[in-house]
């Protein structure tokens, strides 16, 4: 009888536990990362009796969790990619909209500025138009600095996000290491610490969201976690801590390092997750966008200043800079030991590329490397010329000293109008030509334009007189008085369609058939307030391809910035969608194996309940049998 009672009792106890496991499953139906647990029953070792083995009831062999290492790993990987794509889409989406918004984008401001220049050309002597042009120049400057500030805000935000991510990664690493210890201890007893394992899985998934991870399962149940390019983060119960520090070349940038005796920069090695996305966004999108914007800013400033210098303002003076000249940003490595310093100037806006450069000194020679393309030039210095920029070293650098040069990075931020007097806009050209009223021929002098203002104003009137014997008997040409460079060979028989001539700092075109003694004069454009030639030349800059080696206009360059960001934004948004779907799929795959299904639990509950009732019946039957026996023997 005792056997039957024991069997019944073992069943009751086992089933009670099974029901409580089911209850645990039901209770955790909404717990993120919870793996369904299941009870494994086993028959108690039977007792040998003469006729054979007699069963001794049931016991719980183990409580296991449904867990698939492969599926869980897949979820972690997908979590990393999805978080990265999502972060990138979020960040690029922020600048994407700003760049083409009519209220904030550069294109309308650029057009309005050129429109104001047109108005000055239409009415060069009028002050209100000139005032508007300066005001529109200021609007343009505001727009440049607004856009640049948006990029810089994102830069700052990136730094904050990097700091936050690193702090959380450190906390997670510590927790994972702690749990590793607990799991190792618990596992020693032979049982599987299911809920601890789930917690760790949960932490690992959260870690994957922040940065791409690799895990290696250890014998003792702990996992080792590696991030980036094999940088160990957790080994058993020991967690490595990450740190953040300022980039020595650019204090506005936060880098990620591994703390230790010497701080190692691992920024470039990290990928995946929010941290990887922020780092790549910062390096690939923000810097490129700022440089591209800066390129447009330098282009506008330099070409306008050049054109302005070739003109004459309303006071009759040579044009001064319309926009302040934009110097390249220079950084010296904090570890430099020498006294060398750099200066750089932009010589030719059309040759600028928007790339950054690194100049390093090895004790004898300098190596100038393009940080974007990797192209290098080596020389003894102290001056280097690269892509429209001249870099000059002064002082004495020590071997190993390194400098960085970002020619246009800060340009959009620094862009500003440098004149306030509307009279200073050089709408006129400083020279004009006149045809003598007594000319008998039909020769003309046209297209007089100034190439170099250095020789201006002219000391006196320059006179061109046609002389059939200017270059010897029978060799016709123009005698030139008032400036060096004459006589100019000109034979109506061959040159009547026109020849271009350069004299001193200006050029002109001679056409037609002049008669002997016909004269043209070139003089300073005194009181030429009605002249708009230089303003028209400024207007022409709008569609002229003045940037990127003469292949792109301002608008084109800005357009390619917008396109670059838009394509990235589009890719990131598409990737975010795809990655989210993939993540959902792997979660579905994992959960279909690991997750709790309430109907299944309800069925189990019913099953255990029925078995429990049956086991209770066994005890009742045993009891009744015992009572029968008692009744039979009690007289």
């Amino acid at each position, binding site marked *: 009888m005792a056997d039957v009672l024991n069997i019944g009792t073992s069943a009751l106890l086992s089933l009670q536990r099974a029901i409580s496991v089911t209850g645990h499953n039901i209770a955790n139906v909404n717990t993120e990362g919870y793996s369904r647990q299941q009870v494994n029953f086993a028959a108690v070792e039977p007792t040998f009796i003469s006729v054979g083995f007699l069963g001794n009831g049931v016991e719980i062999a183990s409580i296991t969790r449904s867990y698939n290492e492969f599926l869980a790993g897949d979820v972690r990987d997908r979590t990393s990619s999805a978080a990265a794509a999502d972060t990138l889409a979020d960040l690029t*989406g922020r600048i994407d909209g700003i760049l083409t918004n009519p209220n904030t984008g550069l294109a309308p401001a650029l057009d309005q500025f050129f429109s104001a220049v047109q108005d000055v050309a239409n009415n060069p002597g009028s002050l209100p138009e000139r005032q508007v042009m300066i005001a529109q120049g200021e609007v343009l400057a505001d727009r440049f600095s607004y856009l640049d500030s948006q990029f810089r805000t994102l830069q700052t935000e990136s730094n904050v996000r990097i700091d936050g991510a690193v702090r959380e990664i450190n906390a997670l690493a510590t927790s994972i290491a702690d749990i590793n210890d607990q799991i190792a201890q618990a596992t020693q007893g032979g049982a599987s610490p299911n809920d601890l394992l789930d917690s760790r899985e949960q932490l690992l998934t959260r870690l994957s969201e922040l940065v791409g991870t690799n895990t290696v399962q250890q014998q003792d149940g702990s996992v080792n976690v590696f991030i980036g390019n094999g940088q160990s983060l957790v080994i058993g119960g020991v967690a490595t801590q990450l740190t953040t520090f300022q980039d020595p070349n650019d204090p506005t940038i936060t880098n990620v390092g591994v703390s230790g005796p010497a701080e190692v920069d691992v920024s470039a090695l990290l990928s995946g997750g929010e941290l990887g996305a922020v780092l790549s966004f910062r390096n690939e999108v923000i810097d490129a966008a700022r440089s591209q914007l800066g390129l447009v800013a330098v282009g506008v400033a330099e070409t306008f200043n050049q054109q302005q210098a070739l003109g004459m303002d309303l006071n009759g003076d040579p044009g001064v800079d319309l926009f302040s000249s934009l110097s390249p940003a220079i950084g010296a490595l904090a570890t430099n030991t020498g006294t060398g310093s750099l200066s750089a100037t932009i010589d030719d806006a059309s040759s600028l590329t928007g790339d950054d450069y690194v100049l390093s000194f090895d004790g004898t020679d300098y190596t100038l490397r393009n940080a974007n393309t990797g192209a290098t030039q080596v020389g003894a210095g102290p001056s280097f010329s690269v892509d429209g920029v001249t870099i000059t070293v002064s002082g004495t650098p020590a071997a190993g000293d390194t400098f960085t040069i970002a020619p246009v990075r800060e340009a959009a931020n620094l862009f500003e109008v440098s004149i306030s007097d509307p009279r200073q806009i050089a709408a006129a050209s400083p020279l004009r030509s006149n045809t003598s009223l007594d000319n008998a021929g039909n020769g003309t002098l046209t297209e007089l334009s100034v190439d170099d203002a250095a020789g201006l104003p002219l000391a006196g009137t320059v006179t061109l007189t046609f002389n059939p014997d200017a270059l010897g008997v029978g060799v016709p040409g123009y005698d030139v008085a008032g400036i060096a460079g004459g006589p100019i060979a000109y034979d109506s028989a061959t040159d009547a369609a026109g020849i271009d001539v350069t004299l001193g700092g200006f050029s002109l075109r001679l056409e037609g058939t002049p008669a002997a003694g016909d004269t043209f004069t070139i003089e300073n454009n005194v009181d030429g307030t009605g002249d708009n030639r230089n303003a*028209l030349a400024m207007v022409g800059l709008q569609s002229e391809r003045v940037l990127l080696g003469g292949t792109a206009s301002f608008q084109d360059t*800005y*357009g390619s910035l917008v396109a670059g960001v838009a394509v990235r*934004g589009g890719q990131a948004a598409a990737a975010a969608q795809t990655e989210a779907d993939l993540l959902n799929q792997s979660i579905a795959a994992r959960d279909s194996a690991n997750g709790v299904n*309430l109907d299944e639990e309800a069925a189990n509950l019913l099953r255990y309940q029925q078995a429990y009732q049956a086991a209770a019946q066994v005890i009742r039957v045993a009891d009744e049998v015992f009572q029968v026996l008692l009744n039979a023997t009690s007289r």
Partner: protein
Amino acid sequence: MVDRISTLQIYQSGVNSILQRQAEVARTQQELASGQRIQSPSDDPAGAIRILDIEEDLRQIDQYQRNASLAEGQLALEDNTLGNITNVLQRVRELTVQANNATLTAEQRGNIAVEIEARLDEILALANTRDSNEEFIFAGFQAGSQPFTESGGVVSYAGDDGQRFLDIAEGSQVAVRDAGSRIFLGVPGGNGSFDFSVSGNAGTAVVDEASATNSYVRDDYTITFIQALPTDPVTYEVTDSSAAVVATGNYTAGEPIEFNGAQVVVEGEPVDGDTIEIDGAPSQSIFDTVSGIAAALNGATDDPAGVAEVNNLLASGIYNLDEAIGNVLEVRTDVGARMNRVSAQQSINEDFNLQLQTALSDVQDIDYADAISRLNLQLVALQAAQQTFVTTQRLSLFDYI
């Protein structure tokens, strides 16, 4: 096929699909509300750049149209002014023809001179015309200062040859002004090839006609009349600037004197030693021509030689006036051609504008029919997702135990 699915998953996928449908509906709603297909450049980078380009072109065309209407106004002002100048010159010519009559007395000529002088002032005022910005339109680049000033009866030009252009389309500029020097100064004088002048003659020779053929050789010539004895016939001799004789002959009133492609018809009776100077490369200032005519009329005497001198001056003046009127007309024709060009460009710009608007609309606007039917479909899908969610969530085995 997965044969089991977790409850959380059922819930999550239900919620996910509702959220996704909602996002789609919101997106379509946004498109419909803004009327634009591209909400941010990343939706369609190529399209976004195209919009950027088209919008730039549109703004430029807008500016070109403003420039063109400005050019139109400026050219209209110039055209109008040149028209007035032509009228005044025509009037001066009429008066000169009227005065070029041997029967008029010195007093009558003086009266005509008074009117011509008044006309001269009128031309001077027109030459100093200012536009609405107070700029002198015939001053070249020095538009801020008055180009023509009169001092002691001589009108001088303080401007230059500068000409202002405006952009009316990309790479297309049109001149909106002409320098005063082109209109009023340096006008071919005489008959366009040569001018003649007569002064201090004792006889009454008057140039009646002066013309040149294509073979005319440009030089300064002198026609000298010779009559050694009163009984001799009057002969003439034409010498060039180097005193070489180029033609000789007997003088007959009304018969042309021909030399080197020039033909001069002289009337009247010259006496020995009378000369007619031929200026081979004449250029005139319109002001000098008109004031010269007035001066000639004022300085007239009633003796036959004096009358002949006046008549010669007036004949030369009429030739000069014809050239002057011709020159103004030429500039005016040019201005008219430019006005045509401007208005042609305006309509080209308008067409281009329309094309760009269409292109912009193609790139940026949504297709309403498509978007609305899409919205309906998406709403149905959203409703279905919601219903499915509620229905499946309602099913639980626990309801039956």
